[in-house]
């Protein structure tokens, strides 16, 4: 995907640890199922998103 590959081009031990930390965290829980049928129906009906945007960053 990328022309830049930090994993193989001068990645420091700290950066490698950061990459490992992010990967461990990313795989620490299963992905939920997303209701695509509901999304398509709401989109077709011109309805707003199902849940309001919560101010959680």
């Amino acid at each position: 995907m990328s022309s830049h590959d930090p994993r193989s081009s001068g990645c420091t031990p700290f950066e490698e640890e950061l990459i490992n930390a992010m990967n461990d965290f990313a795989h620490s829980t299963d992905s939920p199922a997303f209701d695509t049928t509901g999304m398509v129906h709401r989109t077709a009906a011109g309805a707003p998103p199902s849940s309001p945007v919560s101010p959680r960053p």
Partner: protein
Amino acid sequence: MDLAAKWATGAGRNGVGSTEGDFHGFVAARSAALFRGALVLTGSRDAAEDLVQETLERACRKWRTISAKDAPDAYVRRIMVNLANDRWRRFRRTAQHPVDGDPVAPGDEYGRIDSRDQLVRALQQLPMRMRTVVVLRYFHDLSDAEIAADLKISQSTVRSQLARGIDRLRSQFPALSTPSSQQLTEGTR
């Protein structure tokens, strides 16, 4: 090439019979990867789920346009990271306290058993724009140009945000930052 890889390159839509089926296929193939990226970006399962849900709803509304692009996956990721930054800006206007989790006390990392957990928590303390740049580089493996395009900022801003983000993180984990690794980083900026 599996389905997820096909969608990442834009080839996944070939052979799909309808726009609706196309969108279902995209979500089936790519929602887990989107969720993992959102999880690293937000540090919270609930916030990540909300972020991906809204991202997919927005993508669904523009799916005919998105699916015609060379790389739908990259386009949807771009929606997600900008949505996360927009949310963060709105949140900062209404709250003046840390999001969640205990703040990481500088200098208190010696002797902690799980430095990776601490690194992820420290990442969450970075300002959202800086955090996004770090995540796009080190988790999504994007180049300066790709990050700049995603966030609509200059490549020099990407480099400065990245350098400052890594410096902030490294300063909290002196045990992980040997003098030789610092020299190596300075040589690659």
